[in-house]
């Protein structure tokens, strides 16, 4: 059995991975990598590390004459504060559907945007809202109360 002598490579019978192909693939690969990394970098930029927003904790003086079940809305805040015999409690007035501000009525809350309705304890009674209005943490400080919009408490918690 004779083996053929090894022929000189020609362009009609190239080596398995010609140098030109290797360089081409390397160029394409490095470009793809660079694009990928820069794409991630560019996506990272719009997501702020720190976002400026007003303080979510505020102190409020309740009016002396606040009948049970009547909402007191502190100026500039999306919170309804109530006081009855058992204590003070605060319910967020931001609709859990799409963030419109609900209006406090004697028998509950109504949303103007998509028709959600809530009972006076915040439970959903009609419309598309997926969750009840959250109760917010209230703590007493002297004669006034401090309300923390970021901390929710169980429905029915009164201070």
């Amino acid at each position: 059995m004779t083996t053929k002598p090894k022929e000189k490579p020609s362009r009609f019978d190239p080596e398995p991975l010609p140098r030109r192909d290797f360089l081409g693939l390397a160029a394409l690969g490095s470009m793809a990598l660079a694009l990928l990394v820069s794409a991630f970098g560019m996506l990272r930029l719009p997501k702020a590390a720190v976002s400026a927003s007003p303080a979510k904790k505020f102190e409020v003086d309740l009016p002396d004459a606040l009948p049970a079940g009547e909402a007191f809305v502190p100026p500039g805040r999306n919170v309804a504060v109530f006081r009855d015999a058992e204590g003070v409690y605060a319910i967020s007035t931001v609709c859990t559907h799409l963030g419109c501000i609900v209006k406090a009525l004697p028998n509950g809350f109504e949303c103007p945007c998509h028709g959600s309705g809530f009972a006076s304890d915040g439970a959903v009674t009609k419309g598309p809202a997926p969750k009840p209005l959250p109760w917010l943490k209230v703590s007493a400080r002297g004669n006034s109360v401090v309300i923390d919009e970021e901390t929710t408490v169980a429905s029915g918690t009164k201070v």
Partner: protein
Amino acid sequence: MENEERTALNTFWHNLRAVPVDLYRAMFRGGAPVTDRTRSSFVFGNVFLHLHSVRTHLWSLRWTATMGLGIITTAAFLITLVTGVLLMFYYKPYPDVAYQSIKDIHFIVPTGRFIRNIHRWAANVMVVAVILHMARAFYTASYRKPREFNWLIGWGLLVTTLALSFTGYLLPWDQLAYWAITIGANIAQSPREITDAMGITDLMDIGGLQREILLGSDIVGEESLIRFYLLHVMILPIVMAMLMAVHFWRIRKDGGLAKPADVNERVSVSQPEHYPVFTEEPKKTYQLAAVVKGRTPAVGSGPENTVPSMPHLFYAELGILMFTTLVCVALALVSDAPLKELANPLVPENPAKAPWYFLGLQEIVSFSAFMGGIGIPMLCWIGLGLIPFLDKETEGTGEWFGGPGGARLTLWSMVYGFATSIAVEAFAIRFGWLREWFPDVPQLVITFLNPGTVITALYAAFSIWALRRFNSTRAGALALFTCFLCGFIVLTVIGTYFRGPNWVFFWSPADWNAH
């Protein structure tokens, strides 16, 4: 003496006087478009015109082929581009300041109100035209091979148009703008409705991330406004321009508009009002068989039934451009763009209504935030994109309501589409929905079973019936597309005219005060 006159100074004077003529000739090298050759070079010698083919088929020039809807859309876009740049002279993207600057544009800037009105009306015209244009492409089955990709580009253009409209009405920072941003951002956050129900929001909060990227903050404020401004004046117009370039280019590369297979028996070039085919004998012939793609090599004949694009196509396009401008200007003269009160983060308007083209969406969002705002729109959008890949039949291409079932099926689909959506809406308005009957029903049930999803399911069922009845994917597509178009109209009309304060049903806005 002659030599004396050819001094450099004389040549200089001679050249100087010839500048206007030479400049004109340098710009327009082809000469007046009066022969086949000059008419051709008029097209391909001009960077703005060369996206067109040199010759246009008579079928495509018929008024009923396109009704000019694509050109109307393009014209409206160009008008918004020009007027938008003008508005940027005075507009300042900062909360409250933005509102004052729009007021300045409206009341103080010379022609400011007029330009803003044109901008607003052209945007509205564009939304209408782009929807009708899509319907035209669908009903003439123009999405079929080789035009599948161009249908997808159009699909992207539809979304870009709506995104431009949405980001546009946010900029005045009035009550409409503020609450639209709030609602839009919360729709982006609404996947939480699903992740909350599954209890995985802490692990994977897609909704929260989308909202944060969109707003640039956890509240609607200066960061949000500058983001929507950037989208409106830079990112989206660039996307739009690029998609449009590809869209136009592909029309030509795909062989012009879709035409029936037997188109050449239907139109004839012998009509006397057209510039004739080939007035001159071709002086040279080329072997193009290896270059030109197509089913029928045109051996021994000229390009069948085509006329020069200059003047036939260009004058038609110019006419439509002028018509669109006229419509926008006329509407701008009779109706002012709205500007509500300054944004008030504490009190939404009641009712808080989006512009008309989103009121259908607002109507289904009032059933479920996730399904109405993301689920059903995504379903429609993906369904639209898949049309050319699901219907690969050839019958009826290029003809209005072509394909099995045809105009008759379209008519019945219209009846069904209107009846179903009106019936389901009427039922929900009269009798309420699950929450009113069973207060403890889980949210996930309402998310997936609400009037919006019921209408969608009924439409899908009808489409499957049509598909089986005619044994044709085209019939299924005709039924489904027509139904969704009708549903869109019904929901938009209800949202616009029959919803009042607290999104309650009213027969007429005159009754709103009784509330």
